[in-house]
């Protein structure tokens, strides 16, 4: 493929990600995975763990880009950002209770983050709500998941969606709303 090489600069890449451009996302994933895998393996991890960490980091990066929390400062800023998030996430795994012996990973990893406690709490709560929504999404029926994915991720119109589905365009709007209500219900139930 190589579409990512066609994207002249970071801003275009970020715009593509915001627009949920699957080719750009896929290429970004593909190109950056191995480096993370090597890092995790060099630090007491396994290949499945590397994949999990990378996917978590990828989603976190995606959410930050969507929320305009990432501003690129150079040609490879985004790739570096993704790598940094991956490393941090792996360090967090190691520091958890199951890995008491690996004392080499010292706690000064996050010392450069100089933000107030309140902001940290807000961000943590938002992370939790997002996670709850994502978990709830998995529990939705196929029809809802398909509809919401097509509408919100693939940016299809309700008309296009209803053409491929069992219901008419007129009911698609109401269906979408009901799916979202269901999603919220499920998300609240898990918190």
């Amino acid at each position, binding site marked *: 493929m190589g579409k990512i090489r066609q994207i002249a600069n970071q801003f275009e890449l970020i715009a593509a990600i915001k627009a*949920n451009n*699957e080719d750009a*996302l*896929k290429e970004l*994933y*593909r190109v950056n*995975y*191995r480096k993370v*895998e*090597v890092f995790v*393996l*060099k*630090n*007491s991890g*396994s*290949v*499945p763990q*590397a*994949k999990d960490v990378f*996917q978590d980091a*990828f*989603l976190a990066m*995606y*959410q930050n880009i*969507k*929320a305009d929390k990432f501003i690129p400062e150079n040609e490879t800023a985004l790739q570096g950002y993704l790598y940094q998030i991956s490393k941090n996430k792996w360090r967090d795994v190691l520091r958890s209770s199951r890995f008491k012996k*690996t004392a*080499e990973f010292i706690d000064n990893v996050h010392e450069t983050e100089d933000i107030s406690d309140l902001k940290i709490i807000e961000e943590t709560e*938002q992370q939790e*709500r*997002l996670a*709850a*929504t*994502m978990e709830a*999404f*998995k529990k939705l029926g196929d029809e809802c998941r398909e509809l*919401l*994915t097509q509408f*919100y*991720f693939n940016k299809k119109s309700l008309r296009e969606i209803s053409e491929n589905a069992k219901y008419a365009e007129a009911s698609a*709007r*109401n269906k979408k*709303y009901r799916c*979202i*209500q269901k*999603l*919220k219900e499920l*998300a*609240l139930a898990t918190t």
Partner: protein
Amino acid sequence: MNKNSNIPQAEFETIERYINRAMDSQERAAFNTKINESPMLAAQVEEVKETILGIESAALSEKLDEFHQEINPVQKLQGQETEGNSNNFRKRFISIAVAASIVLVLGVFWYNSNGSSSEKLFAKHFTPDPGLPTTMSTTDNYDFYEAMVDYKTKDYKTAIHKWELILDEKPANDTLNYFLGVANLVEGNDEKALSYLEKAANNNNSFLKSDIYFYLGLTYLKENNNIAAKESFKVSGSDKSLKILSEIKE
């Protein structure tokens, strides 16, 4: 966020149009004013944004395993697993990332082809040793563990090359010879595998003794030398070895 608030459909859809920039400039300006004047509306807008982000993230999350499949495999064998398989079959193989799973696929294909019964037995039971845990913070044996990382990422040629360099200093080392043996076996270099494994086996007190003889047995099986294979499996005594022993027909 007010968890008890339920944004009614009409209001929800208006907020959505605002977020998606589907309003004309006049309507947008008016709505902006409303947001500035009403903290509750502002909060609702944030809530809708968050819900949408959650949905998009969930949708993306479901695609990540697909993306993972596009990663160029180090071994050519991975191409075979995507032919005409159901989603579950593919996902199962992706989730088993250890080299062993790839060789198992190879084993199944071999099993169905016309090999001798010993070779089939080899194919059925051979999975490479998963490797030792790697912590690069240890400064002694750094080179060994660096090559172990290559081994674990299935880059056997590089691992072999690096380990061979260390071999000059520690020619009789059981661990070194053992892993060189297994790596060569994966690469199909049976003779080299045999010579490394036999060297490793010279260490009578090796803690790897059982594994060394297990792989020796497998190598002999592959070479159709059932007698030597049986001997090796007996010495090994591990459960895996005994199981294969029971399956050798002669």
